[in-house]
């Protein structure tokens, strides 16, 4: 009755078995040996789904907007990946995004909450894997929601086909707009809580920032929403659709996905190296080098260089 082989599990997930899909996601979330196998199997069928990133400050209304977006997409099987920070002290987390979504989304939406967990940089590979699994299971669009604080969270939301950045009135002025790294990743801006005073001021500041120059031939539109009332959500979805067309027509989609693949492979190499670096320092040669550093015979920099050379030859033949 329970599907055993990985092929059977993916088949079951595609056929709508949410428990099996939930378990596959747990496996990639753990990034253990199973994860590699699951990821590889998922990669064969992935690449069909639209990936939308939603990010912004805490309390800006991301989860409510995300829930609405899944609903207005009109898709048969939308999925939401809601990422919240783990406590750095205890490793625990309160994942509360579902309560902002339950009233809006229909039962065909698959929602998974993910905590950032301890492993440094691990999120950067666990999230693409989770997206891959949802994609292979036939979910589309896949909306990835993260809090827009911290480099990793912003990078994850930015690693989407379309990135939506949510701000609220009073979040800051034009100067803030220019210094915040969060804003550079936006394909679409949302000024949420637009029923509050100065929503138009927030829009004006964003327009001013965009007037100073934007990346390419796409200028990020600014949509005003009152997410709790569902106002402006149709406009937002229309902009998401327009951006999707732009991505296809301009060839930007292929370029973005190419960049995404590169950076994911780079992230994985980095993680693997970090892991090996820690093992190396625990090993005999690491102890030996550390002793020499302690006796002031070797500087930390020189010790690191020597140990690194034992991991990877400095002059790679392919260079």
């Amino acid at each position: 009755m329970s599907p055993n082989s990985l092929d059977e599990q993916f088949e079951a997930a595609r056929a709508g078995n949410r428990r099996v899909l939930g378990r596959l996601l747990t496996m990639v979330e753990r990034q253990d040996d199973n994860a590699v196998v699951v990821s590889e199997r998922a990669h064969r069928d992935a690449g069909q789904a639209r990936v939308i990133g939603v990010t912004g400050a805490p309390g800006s209304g991301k989860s409510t907007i995300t829930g609405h977006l899944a609903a207005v997409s009109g898709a048969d099987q939308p999925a939401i990946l809601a990422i919240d920070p783990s406590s750095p002290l205890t490793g625990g987390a309160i994942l509360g995004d579902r309560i902002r979504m339950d009233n809006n989304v229909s039962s065909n939406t698959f929602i998974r909450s993910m905590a950032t967990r301890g492993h440094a940089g691990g999120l950067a590979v666990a999230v693409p894997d989770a997206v891959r699994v949802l994609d292979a299971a036939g979910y589309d669009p896949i909306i990835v929601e993260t809090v827009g604080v911290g480099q990793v969270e912003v990078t994850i939301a930015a690693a989407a086909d379309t990135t939506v950045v949510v701000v609220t009135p009073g979040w800051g002025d034009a100067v803030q707009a220019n210094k915040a790294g969060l804003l550079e990743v936006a394909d679409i801006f949302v000024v949420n809580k637009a029923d509050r005073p100065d929503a138009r001021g927030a829009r004006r500041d964003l327009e001013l920032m965009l007037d100073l120059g934007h990346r390419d031939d796409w200028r990020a539109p600014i949509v005003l929403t009152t997410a709790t009332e569902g106002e402006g959500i149709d406009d937002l979805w229309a902009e998401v659709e327009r951006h999707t067309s732009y991505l296809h027509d301009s060839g930007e989609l292929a370029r973005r996905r190419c960049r995404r693949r590169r950076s994911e492979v780079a992230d994985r190499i980095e993680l693997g190296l970090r892991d090996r670096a820690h093992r190396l320092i625990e090993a005999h040669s690491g102890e030996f080098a550390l002793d020499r550093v302690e006796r002031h015979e070797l500087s930390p920099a020189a010790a690191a260089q020597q140990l690194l050379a034992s991991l990877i030859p400095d002059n790679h033949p392919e260079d």
Partner: protein
Amino acid sequence: MSETSGHSPRSADDPEPLRVVLAKLGFDGHDRGLKVVARTLRDAGMEVIYLGLRQTTESIIAACEQEDADVIGLSMHNAGHLTLAPRMVQAVDTAGLDVPVVIGGIVPAEDVNVLIEAGVAAVLGPGASAEEVVAAVKAAVTRQSAAR
């Protein structure tokens, strides 16, 4: 790859955090206690999927499946426990889920055994300390995985 059928095998000493779904069933608006429990379990290193107020057995089951939860925690303060708690346990069984149900809130002493006999894994009253709450959740998961 290793055996992956059934629920992912978990025990309380698994290094990865336990995933707990916390909810209130039906028209019970007292969620202060549930919020305290959420914080307590987080501080014990667990991942709390907080569903909050006005849930149904169906919505809790759906969340458990999607979130691959290890345990369900229900808070009850409106004397509905004798009706709702067994109904939740029943729903978990019907769905074929392998997840224990822990109840917290106001449950009179004479009702505790009734709930345990109905399949509830543990009942925590208002006097329960943070340590007792954490221990009860861990024990419920351990017993469940031992019975597997």
